């Protein structure tokens, strides 16, 4: 896997983004699919092996 860049974040550049811009965004509405713990499971198949199984 790609090695992580070990450089500090460019704080100046981030601070330059206007606060007003960010306030418009409801962050929790950005989820298209939430992480695994919150998934619905209505269509669980009898064979649990999923997409890579042809059984």
């Amino acid at each position, binding site marked *: 896997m790609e090695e992580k860049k070990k450089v500090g974040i460019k704080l100046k550049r981030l601070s330059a983004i206007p606060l007003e811009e960010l306030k418009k965004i409801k962050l929790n509405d950005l989820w298209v699919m939430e992480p695994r713990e919150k998934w619905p499971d209505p269509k669980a198949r009898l064979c649990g092996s999923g997409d*890579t199984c042809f059984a």
Partner: protein
Amino acid sequence: MTYISSNYNFWIRFGESDTSYLFNSLQGGLLRIPKNIKNIVEELTNNCFELNDIPIHIKKIAKLLINGGFIVLENISELNIIKKRFFSPPNPKTFYLTIIPTLNCNLRCTYCYQRHLDISMSQEVCRAIIKEIKRRIKSQNIKVLKVEWYGGEPLLKLGLIKNLSRNIMNLVKENNIFYEASLVSNGTLLNSKTVKILSKICIKRIQITLDGLPEIHNLNRPYIDGTASFEDVIRGIKKASKRFIINLRINVDRYSIKKAFEFLDKMEKYGILKIKKNIRPYIAMIGPLTPNCLNTCERAIDPKDWYFYVLKFQQELCKRFSDINPKEIFEYPKIFQKPCGAISEWSVCVHPSGKIFNCGLEIDNLQLSGGFIWEPYWEHPIYKKWTKYNIFENEQCVICRYLPICMGGCPKHTFNKESFFKNNACKHWYNYLEPTIKKFIKIVE
């Protein structure tokens, strides 16, 4: 505490579009990244940082990314998270028991991997199953029992299913264990009477196979005497869908795949469109799953093209089932604890003879069994070959970003180096993750 980018992030971009998306294969989250925060998210996921060092209004975005696992603590090993999932018992502790009351079947499908010997389960084996559940309750402290009735055609032995279910239900009640059952059936024997019985024995879902249009289905799945079964299956689906969720399996090959799409258009004609809320159609591949069905090689769709059809089918399905939440019918990449229940110590398959199998596809070959249910089968070398299977011994898997959604693919095909499906697991997500997520976004957004 220093945060760094997850190794399992995938950026999904739509050309010049203002909005990008970020998917994390370890936690499964998919985040919409609008243009005005794209730079921030890129900065946060491309660098390492201390949470206290970033401006307060950026911190909210950082926390969102942390919640989705897109950013992780530097000293956390993400691979260890996958290992922990793989080696942990199911949560809650669940015993997955597949019971095969008979290998006999009233159909003779042209692609079937079973020879349908007339073998049915004896009372002795039924008693051994109850004993085994008791042993599991004691030794594994199970909290949930999930039984899958499989065959052959299990409904040929409805009396046995009913009696054994009652004994199981008494046992789980005494031990305060949650119980749920499912059934794999060809659908021909589902009528008002059977549906009534099945609803009393905790059946929640039934997998029924209907190979699309009648002209295809009747060729693929005739009765023993060669007569057509389509109408009977449709009748069975109508009856069963009143009480159960139906996973409607449409087996396809390179000749019938297009007809599967046509079938979706004709569901109304066959009278099953109105009940679609309980029906989940999906396509499955006809192919040489075992040496018994090598005759299907020529007609099988090339595994590397398979997911193209799956995606197309799901897209068509979402169009036609627009009143159902697409998140419920679209195959969004799932995160697995293990690639398959067959390698789990929490799952077994009981043959009518009492022989134990790990994989349901091997039940036609007694040589592949891991001992009898009344023996300490967990010490049998074949059983151990499966349950000791360790995906982390594969160097390619360990460094793979797709590992949490693939887990190495089907172990049976991994064991069999000559398998028609060999290596397909790797190509699968490498080729299809981005198109899958893109289609999912287009459908749900």
